[in-house]
């Protein structure tokens, strides 16, 4: 897609449908909250974003918080374009955050302000060392549980976003919300700080459960705000518009 004058450089996600929705991709160095309830495809989408980046030669880093990365790799859908050599070559790196906590001596259930500083520095140093251009933290909600207060969460995400943005790294923070939540994040803070919000959901229609995706906000670009239905396939996440069928709901 030709770049118009004044347009920001894009980080094309490699998901054709999403790049179309975003008029070419996520504005580079943005921090995006990818949020939704369980089983909506957040991790699969985030992984695909990283794999496409690694294939293009952009160093990509997956910070796993809730699941051991070996187990994660076994369970992900076998994307036909995924090649384990991306991991061997270091283009795609998986890091388990609990191991990082351990190394930093963060064994207590909640983190102090000093420890937050340490954690931000550890993640950004790692991203700097690996020359990371795409980063995913799955999930930011699990990290936030260790931060407890809104102030600490705000501070952590703000500092992390700034550090990653300074490295020209485009980041996706995976957020978890309850299925019946009307908010885009568990703590109500993450959504306000992120440059973009991509909402994934399960939508029930006449007894059918559809996986949907909607870009709620994305700083630095025009984007569609419509709801799309998605499918996770071996060729990647595919999207089509949600049919309205003359409904007003």
């Amino acid at each position, binding site marked *: 897609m030709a770049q118009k004058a004044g347009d920001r450089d894009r980080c094309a996600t490699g998901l054709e449908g999403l790049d179309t929705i975003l008029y070419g991709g996520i504005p580079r160095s943005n921090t995006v909250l990818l949020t939704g309830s369980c089983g909506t495809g957040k991790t699969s989408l985030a992984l695909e974003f990283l794999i496409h980046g690694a294939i293009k030669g952009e160093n990509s880093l997956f910070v796993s918080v809730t699941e051991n990365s070996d187990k994660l790799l076994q369970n992900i859908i076998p994307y036909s374009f995924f090649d384990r050599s991306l991991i061997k070559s270091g283009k795609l790196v998986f890091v388990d955050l609990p191991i990082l906590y351990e190394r930093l001596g963060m064994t207590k259930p909640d983190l102090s302000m000093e420890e937050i500083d340490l954690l931000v520095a550890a993640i950004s140093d790692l991203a700097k060392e690996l020359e990371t251009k795409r980063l995913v933290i799955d999930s930011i909600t699990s990290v936030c549980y260790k931060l407890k207060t809104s102030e600490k969460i705000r501070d952590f995400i703000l500092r992390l976003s700034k550090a990653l943005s300074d490295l020209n790294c485009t980041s996706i923070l995976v957020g978890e919300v309850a299925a019946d939540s009307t908010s885009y994040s568990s703590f109500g803070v993450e959504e306000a700080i992120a440059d973009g919000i991509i909402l994934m959901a399960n939508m029930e229609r006449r*007894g059918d459960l559809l996986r949907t995706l909607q870009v709620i906000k994305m700083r630095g670009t025009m984007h569609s705000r419509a709801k799309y239905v998605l499918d996770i396939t071996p060729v990647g996440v595919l999207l089509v518009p949600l*049919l309205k069928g*003359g409904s007003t709901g």
Partner: protein
Amino acid sequence: MSPEMVSAQQIAKELSEMPPSSAASLQMSVDNYLDVIRGVVDLFANKKEMDTIYVTATISSDAIRRVLDALDIDSSRVYFVDCISHIMMGASSAQQDEHTTLVESPTMLENLMLKVEYLIRRSGSKDKLVVIDSINSLAIHNNNWILSEFLHILVSGLRSRDAYTVIFTVEEHSTPEINNMVSLVCDHGILAGKKEG
């Protein structure tokens, strides 16, 4: 005078005259289903060495495969999007079949489009044919608004991918609304139903 059926050869000839990315409605009678299948899948798609993505909402993919076998039609290039086996609770054999992709219900029209898109991307053949069998069966489960929207998006997408689209309508079960909906998105109409001989 008894009605005379349009032959499989005639159907294939009419389809062959269409340029790629065309969409055609194929109005048939329940009595000449076999001729239509032979004309579309065998004499048109197989002869042109193109993959066929066969969306079935009328009878199960298993049953259509048996029809193809009985007619001695090569089904190695036919990939099914089966919208009916799951709701009939008869999907167990289709689940094991590499040539069949299941959609849970014919009401999940978006998922139907996604499965077609997936098969188009996976297909290695230069030209592709997408068959919708049939619009009347889909109309049993969906209202005209959503069906019309579905057809518009599906056919527009397939045109942009240079795929042929053939939409079956069954004259005994059709209505003026359904015929209008189909003719709105199609640029060719093939009458393969009964005609006075």
